[in-house]
């Protein structure tokens, strides 16, 4: 009888103990887990390619794709949502906006929601400025693009008297050799080596960005090894540890040696920009305004970031003080700010055309229209060099790609050459080239390591 009673107590203990164990872990898991599922009604995003630079007679059509869940359905149902919205347009960069409701079309390729800018506004010699407020008509969720709306609208400028550069068909295989290799490192983690990240479902990722000082010193962001590596006079000089996430980041080094790193993610929902002292100590970090970035450059007043979906360059700092996300958005503009205060606007149009304009204020000062019989990929670099503009663009086919370096002057191309893409390892999207002095530098890689090559540009002042 006693044995049976003991057995009962033991079984009860086992059952209750097991239940308590499962409950305890479940409770701990619930506490540790993140928030519950997001409200689908809050999901809204946009795809939009702003027509920054328009040729005479080109139709001013604004197209948007609005991404949000369909009414009353799970986002995974994949039905297009009941979206709508308005575009607010005005001639030039000042004055009152005119409201144009978006029209829904069947053309999702370039944007299902369309607004035709009235001819009277589109033909303004000062172009037109606009912003759009997009809505999920069912839930009321809305999104403004560019994100500051009327405070920093997008600008679309007419191209009068463009210098046409016709490249014809690109001649692959006639590449120029570098004048010097100014940095070189085999893959690895030791000093003087460069980190390489490889995985089964992504290609090799090497140092994701670099920068070059006025004296030719090279700094390479070795994000895999959490450091910035430096080369002086072609020799590895130092490693500076930096606290980075290890993802593909862009980098710019300020004149005083401070290091700005634009990370792919952040603590919040948008990526963050981190500022390091020349010693590598983290000074501060700040989120950027938009969900996505494409490039980071140093402007005359601090770092500027090209952000999407606004497709604007936004200042991140003023006088060593980070700007709030709202202040970044309110400073948005279509081009990158140059040291002389002018602005350089890049617009890759269609499949094989690039338009480059230099602005003074909101007015086009000089403009080039580059056309090609070979498809053109991204504009990797557009930088002033004295009174010229150096452009690096990427012609490509299904099987080939190279970078084409153009020096643009008042009459068109003053000089050009091709360089091997040397892109075995991935970098940040628009971080493969930098201009310092009158030399162009390229961050390249092969299966054995990474390198930085220098190409001296023969440009007379």
């Amino acid at each position, binding site marked *: 009888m006693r044995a049976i009673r003991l057995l009962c*107590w033991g079984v009860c203990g086992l059952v209750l103990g097991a*239940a308590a164990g499962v409950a305890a872990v479940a409770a701990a898991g619930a506490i540790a887990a993140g928030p519950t599922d997001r409200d689908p009604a809050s999901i809204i995003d946009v*795809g939009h390619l702003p027509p920054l630079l328009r040729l005479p007679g080109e139709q001013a059509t604004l197209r948007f*794709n609005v*991404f949000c869940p369909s009414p009353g359905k799970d986002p995974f149902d994949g039905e297009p949502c009941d979206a709508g919205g308005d575009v607010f347009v005005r001639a030039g960069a000042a004055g009152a906006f005119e409201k144009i409701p978006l029209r829904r079309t069947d053309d999702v390729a370039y944007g299902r929601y369309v607004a035709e800018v009235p001819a009277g506004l589109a033909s303004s010699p000062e172009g037109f400025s606009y912003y759009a407020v997009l809505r999920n008509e069912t839930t009321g969720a809305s999104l403004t693009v560019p994100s500051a709306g009327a405070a920093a609208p997008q600008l679309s400028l007419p191209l009068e008297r463009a210098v046409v550069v016709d490249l014809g068909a690109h001649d692959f295989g006639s590449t120029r050799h570098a004048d010097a290799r100014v940095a070189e490192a085999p893959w690895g983690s030791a000093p003087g080596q460069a980190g390489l990240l490889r995985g089964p479902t992504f290609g090799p990722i090497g140092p994701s960005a670099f920068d070059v000082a006025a004296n030719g010193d090279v700094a390479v962001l070795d994000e895999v090894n959490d450091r910035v590596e430096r080369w002086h006079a072609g020799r590895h000089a130092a490693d500076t540890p930096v606290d980075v996430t290890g993802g593909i980041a862009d980098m710019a080094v300020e004149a005083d040696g401070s290091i700005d790193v634009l990370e792919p993610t952040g603590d919040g929902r948008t990526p963050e920009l981190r500022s390091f002292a020349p010693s590598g100590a983290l000074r501060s970090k700040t989120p950027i305004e938009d969900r996505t970035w494409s490039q980071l450059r140093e402007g005359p007043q601090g770092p500027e970031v090209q952000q999407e979906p606004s497709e604007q360059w936004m200042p991140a700092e003023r006088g060593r003080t980070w700007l709030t996300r709202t202040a970044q958005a309110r400073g948005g503009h279509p081009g990158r700010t140059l040291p002389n205060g002018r602005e350089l606007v*890049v617009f890759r149009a269609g499949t094989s055309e690039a338009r480059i304009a230099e602005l003074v204020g909101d007015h086009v000062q000089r403009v080039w229209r580059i056309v090609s019989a070979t498809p053109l990929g991204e504009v990797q670099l557009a930088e002033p060099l004295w009174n010229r503009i150096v452009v690096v663009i990427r012609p*490509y086919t299904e099987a080939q790609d190279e970078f084409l370096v153009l020096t643009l002057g008042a009459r068109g191309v003053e000089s050009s050459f091709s360089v091997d893409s040397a892109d075995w390892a991935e970098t940040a999207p628009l971080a493969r080239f930098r201009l310092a002095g009158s030399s162009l530098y390229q961050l390249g890689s092969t299966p054995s390591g990474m390198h930085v090559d220098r190409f001296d540009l023969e440009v007379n002042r």
Partner: protein
Amino acid sequence: MSLLRPRVVFLAAFLVALSLAAAKAALATFVSANCNYNAPTSSPNMYRDGSVTVALVARYEGYHWGGGCWNDNDVDEGPNEPLQTSSTGGEGGDCSGLTFKVWRESLNTGDGGHYQWGRLRNVHGPYTAADFKAGVGVPNATYPKADAIVMDAFASSTHIGMVYQRGTSGADQIVEAKCEACGTNIFTRTYRSDSSYGGVRRMGWTG
């Protein structure tokens, strides 16, 4: 004799069971605790912009090699997993798993229909990035990169990402499950002009 008192026996049994149960429960992975193996539902339509919304759900939910199950709370509940390990059961898809699910494909490579998989359905699909690049499977075809539009994809021998929007620089915003450190998100990439990548189109869009 005192060890055989009922209360002592109960306590000992309780503690042993508690430890074992807690250890077993604690070893549960995200997949084993949350995901299912439900059959997909067939759907007559498939829209490019609607499919972008499907992809948006996967943002911030992490990356898991060989994976295909995620919730929608914007937290990666299987972070810092070792490379090339699917057995850790973490949250998120990998690049080809995300594409398979967003493109509503079938496990049968000869079936070009549209199949809606739930976000908590753990499925990777039969295709690697290299398969997609080669246009393997009835629903998939190679496609000229210059003509790729929203929800077409660029694939290399190891990676695939879907077009979200082309940018003014000529680079593309791509929605992709990139890597453990990168997660799943929208990133600007230059796959279009990179000759190691080819264009891929999912056939059969409604619009």
